[in-house]
């Protein structure tokens, strides 16, 4: 069984890699040193091995492993501790994060090979991995918030990795600020919990310990309305981090970062942190019907909203970004209807197949000279067979086709939504069905545009790129293909292997759903619903077929429709004008040009104006008094005599 030191080392290993590269490799060995890649890969390999060990220990133990925490700050009776919470959720998340991170790092050594910031890249990637693992391990709310913000900061650094690109610098800032807006809610939730610290302390609980907060509901320490408000505040944080509507705008822009970063951070792991947060405090959310309803509705809206924008995007990474937002919406929706294990199962499978899809996008872009615009790709099927195979597996999984991982987890979610007792379950069920159709369509639209038809010149044809030389598309190097193969294998197998319909060898039926659970009586394991599975598959297939009809077949449906002038198309391609509303209307117009400008003017003219007026009055009085000081003795003598007389008079009167 893994001990405390071993568990901490899952976190410290990438952190040490970060420090080592930061203070040693980057300044002294070289900004492009291959050593940094090796250090990172070695460190994350250690983490991966230990993560599997931790998972094995939790399975073996049959329940969470108790690990003592340590004091960080103590003031009077208030203690903020740091510790490890090693339960089923943590163990699964550790395995997902460390193994996907490891594959992405290996891929990166090929993808970033010629980049001037090679060492800096691996330094940030190590920092991210450490922070993400820190977040997963945290047993304390404040500790969790610390790493929650640190993953945000590493995401900021990596989105803005190519800081010379103004778009990258702007996207990094945008990501940080929008997630911060959500964190405002998270912070208020923490404060509101502390507000109730009296009742926590009276019951021997700590208002910051995750386990204590979840127990507080059962023990009746906090009422369901308090739980509801805390849950909603936390959910605001989760919405920011997981790019839920209406905080979704940062994630598509975050694609300005290097593609492996998008795969690891903005698809597989960090953006799932919001789901993790809700799952972590699931008893708290369950205590309030309203909070659960909000989660389900926001998830549902996000799922269909993002999918609809994904239909018209031409940048392959943006298609995947909207797809990520939509899939995160699915997970939130699942949590909202009480399908805890289904949500985590989808998080688990999605991490593999979405990382796979992003890495194939990187592989494609790598081969066509750097562009991500699908209008200038096409015909890559024969030129890049490995990548094509990988993208088909990933795409089928995303579309929910048997036997890919996505089929199993999506089916679980639909099944739970169908059987849920939640007020909004019907609404979100149908939303989920429609979104599934849209998903299959946009994914295969992207695949067909990229791989079918004829090659359209790649980066050279793209007016948005400054590329002059012709590039011949070619398959990517082995170091990039091997991670694709491994992720493909995972995508094909993990679905039925970890949550099987019957006992497979030593893996019992519904292993995952049984393993991931919160307490007794919650979220019963549902029997596999054959009818639903068939319907969902048909919907997926029809989406793919439609995409085939429009983009591959000779029918040329697209040419006959006046799509580009269509109002709906305009709204979709403009992403419902959210960026314009946030950036132009609210930020620039209302906040900057009005509010901040007026306040600045008030400060300069009014507040400082008062100061200047007082100053002027003082000077004028001084000047007046100075005029009396003429230096003429006669004058002084007269004034003095009058003064003496005056005093004498007063003396006589008041004697």
């Amino acid at each position, binding site marked *: 069984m893994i001990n405390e030191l071993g568990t901490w080392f899952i976190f410290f290993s990438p952190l040490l890699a970060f420090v080592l590269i930061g203070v040693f490799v980057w300044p002294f060995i070289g900004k492009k040193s291959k050593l940094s890649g090796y250090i990172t890969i070695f460190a994350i390999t250690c983490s991966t091995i230990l993560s599997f060990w931790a998972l094995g220990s939790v399975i073996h133990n049959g329940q969470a492993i108790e690990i003592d925490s340590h004091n960080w700050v*103590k003031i*009077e009776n208030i203690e903020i501790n740091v510790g490890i919470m090693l339960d089923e959720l943590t163990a699964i998340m550790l395995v997902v994060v460390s193994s996907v991170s490891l594959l992405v790092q290996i891929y990166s050594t090929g993808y970033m090979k010629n980049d001037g910031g090679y060492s800096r890249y691996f330094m940030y990637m190590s920092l991210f991995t450490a922070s993400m693992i820190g977040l997963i391990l945290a047993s304390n709310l404040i500790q969790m918030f610390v790493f929650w913000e640190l993953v945000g900061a590493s995401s900021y650094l990596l989105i803005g990795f190519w800081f010379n690109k103004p778009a990258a610098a702007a996207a990094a800032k945008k990501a940080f600020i929008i997630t911060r807006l959500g964190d*405002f809610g998270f912070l208020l939730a923490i*404060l509101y919990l502390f507000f109730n610290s009296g009742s926590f302390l009276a019951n021997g609980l700590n208002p910051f310990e995750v386990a204590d907060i979840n127990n507080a509901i059962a023990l009746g320490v906090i009422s369901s309305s308090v739980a509801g408000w805390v849950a909603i505040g936390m959910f605001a944080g989760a919405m920011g981090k997981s790019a839920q509507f209406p905080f979704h705008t940062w994630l598509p822009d975050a694609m300005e970062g290097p593609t492996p970063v998008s795969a690891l951070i903005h698809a597989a792991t960090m953006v799932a942190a919001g789901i993790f947060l809700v799952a972590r405090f699931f008893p708290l959310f369950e205590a309030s019907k309203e909070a659960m309803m909000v989660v389900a509705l926001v998830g549902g809206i996000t799922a269909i909203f993002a999918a609809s924008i994904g239909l018209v995007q031409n940048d392959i990474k943006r298609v995947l970004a909207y797809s990520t937002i939509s899939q995160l919406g699915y997970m939130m929706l699942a949590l909202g209807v009480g399908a805890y294990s289904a949500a985590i199962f989808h998080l688990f499978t999605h991490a593999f197949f979405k990382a796979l899809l992003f890495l194939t996008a990187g592989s494609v872009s790598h081969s066509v000279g750097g562009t991500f615009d699908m209008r200038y790709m096409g015909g890559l099927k024969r030129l890049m067979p490995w990548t094509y195979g990988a993208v088909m597996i990933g795409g089928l999984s995303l579309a929910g086709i048997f036997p890919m991982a996505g089929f199993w987890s999506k089916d679980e979610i639909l099944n739970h939504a169908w059987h849920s007792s939640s007020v909004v379950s019907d609404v979100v069920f149908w939303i989920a069905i429609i979104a599934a159709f849209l998903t299959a369509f946009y994914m295969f639209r992207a695949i067909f545009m990229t791989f079918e038809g004829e090659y359209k010149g790649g980066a050279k044809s793209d007016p948005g790129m400054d590329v002059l030389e012709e590039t011949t598309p070619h398959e990517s190097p082995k170091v990039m293909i091997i991670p694709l193969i491994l992720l493909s294998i995972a995508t094909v197998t993990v679905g039925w292997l970890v949550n099987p319909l019957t006992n497979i060898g030593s893996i019992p039926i519904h292993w995952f759903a049984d393993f991931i659970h919160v307490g007794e009586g919650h979220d019963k394991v549902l029997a596999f619903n054959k009818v639903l599975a068939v319907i969902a598959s048909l919907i997926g297939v029809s989406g793919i077929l439609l995409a085939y009809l429009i983009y591959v077949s000779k029918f040329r449906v697209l040419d006959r429709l006046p799509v580009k002038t269509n109002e709906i198309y305009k709204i979709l391609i403009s992403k419902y004008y959210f960026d314009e509303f946030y950036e132009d209307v609210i930020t620039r117009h209302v906040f900057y040009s009005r509010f901040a400008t007026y306040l600045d003017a008030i400060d300069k003219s009014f507040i400082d104006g008062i100061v200047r007026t007082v100053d002027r009055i003082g000077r004028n009085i001084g000047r007046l008094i100075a005029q009396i000081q003429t230096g003429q003795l006669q004058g002084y003598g007269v004034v003095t005599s009058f003064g003496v007389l005056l005093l004498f008079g007063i003396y006589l009167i008041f004697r």
Partner: protein
Amino acid sequence: MDGLTQNTGFNGLLTALVFLPFLFALGILIFARNDHHVRLMAAVGGLVELVLSIAVFIAYKKVESGFQLIDRFNSWIPIDSFRVDYFLGVDGLSVPMVLLTGILGMVAILASMRITNRVKQYFIWILVLQGAVFGVFTALDFIMFFLFWELELIPMFFLISNWGTGRKDYSAMKFIIFTFLGSAFMLVGALALYISVGTFDMTALPELVQSGIKLVIPAGAIFGLLFVGFAVKLPVWPLHTWLPDAHTDAPTAVSVLLAGVLLKMGGYGMIRVTASIMPDVMAGLAWLLVAAGVINVLYGAVVTVRQTDLKRLVAFSSISHMGYVLIGLSAIASKGADAAAVGLTGASMQMFTHGTITGLMFLTVGMIYDRTHTRYIPDLGGLSNRMPIIGLAFLIAGLASLGLPGTSGFASEILVFLGAFPVWAWPTALAVFGVVITAGYILWMTQRTLFGHMNSRWEKLTDASKLELVPIVMLVATILIFGIYPAFLTDLFKISVEPIVAAVNSSSEILSR
């Protein structure tokens, strides 16, 4: 009481700490033959002070709490009716402030090595300034405290008006007049206390005043007089308008000291004097503190967004960040001891962390200005290309300033919020929104200066030299160490905070009976 009998003796460490800078200044005046000698002697002076301040940090025994390292001669001014003692000592509140002054003093001296104009005078004034600030943070006799408080103005005036930029004479004069006005009120308050209870001993004043002695003027009036003096220094809105001018026009090292240390004298005074001596009055007026704090935070942050001069931007952000000190102090009105202690500790910690963070910001802005000769943000951009190290340091300062966990900025802000929220839920929630605006202006600033396309004018810029690296590393290390393990500081601050909280609680218990 035990505490009173302990407060005698002569240890010598603090006397050395306070007066060595003056000796070094004198040494430079007499012995330095050329600018090189001056710089060397000043650097040695700064180093000695840094070592001494670390020695104070280590020598203070947390378990024993109370005032320690006492240096005291009774009746330093031996007039029967006006007894002033020579009385230095430190407690949990002043130890971190001393350390802060030691660190920033060294940083300021190292950051001044490029000064070529009247080098001798410059360093003399810097050392005198440092000595005076050490005096403020260690004096325990009110008159001594006041003398050091005023002494600090003289070097400040000359440093800004002689070595500054822009409207330096105006700014220096504005700074002087504002502070003088404030301290005039403070002096009246101090005298009123003396006339009432007959001592300037700051360790004895709390107990005497709280024992219910009749005061010559109402307690609220004394509180107000004292508070105005500190409020100007912090600064509290609307008494803040001297700050952007003084910070912007001062030379780099002086901005570092001004924002890093001198503002903290205001917050230090609020805790050492007003909160300690009259905690119940302060608790009664806490609504004013929180109101002013919220205005400082939000108003400061919004106005910061509009600034186009790098230094002015950082200056306005200081106003915003000092609001957190006020909000933390407002937790003194809490019914429970826990929240009040957390809030006051957070407020104290915010002073320390803001000192190091803004110190690093002004330092790096100064380095950028040295190279580009402009602070106008739209002219900059892409600087990280040519100066990755300065850029990284500037970014770290920015991230710490917006309260990124792992840096000390987070630890102090979260404590402030935690402490104040149970008492002032809605105002605190408003102030928490300040962190969003802060993220906005900080990241917008770094985007426009460090990232994006680089102007071809900046092609030849050089990165930090080895000498410049020293203060950067010192400050970054300080920010990270206390961010990763804030208990190094909170364990100290709570020593001073606990008696205040206890006093508030006992007086409110008496009232409720």
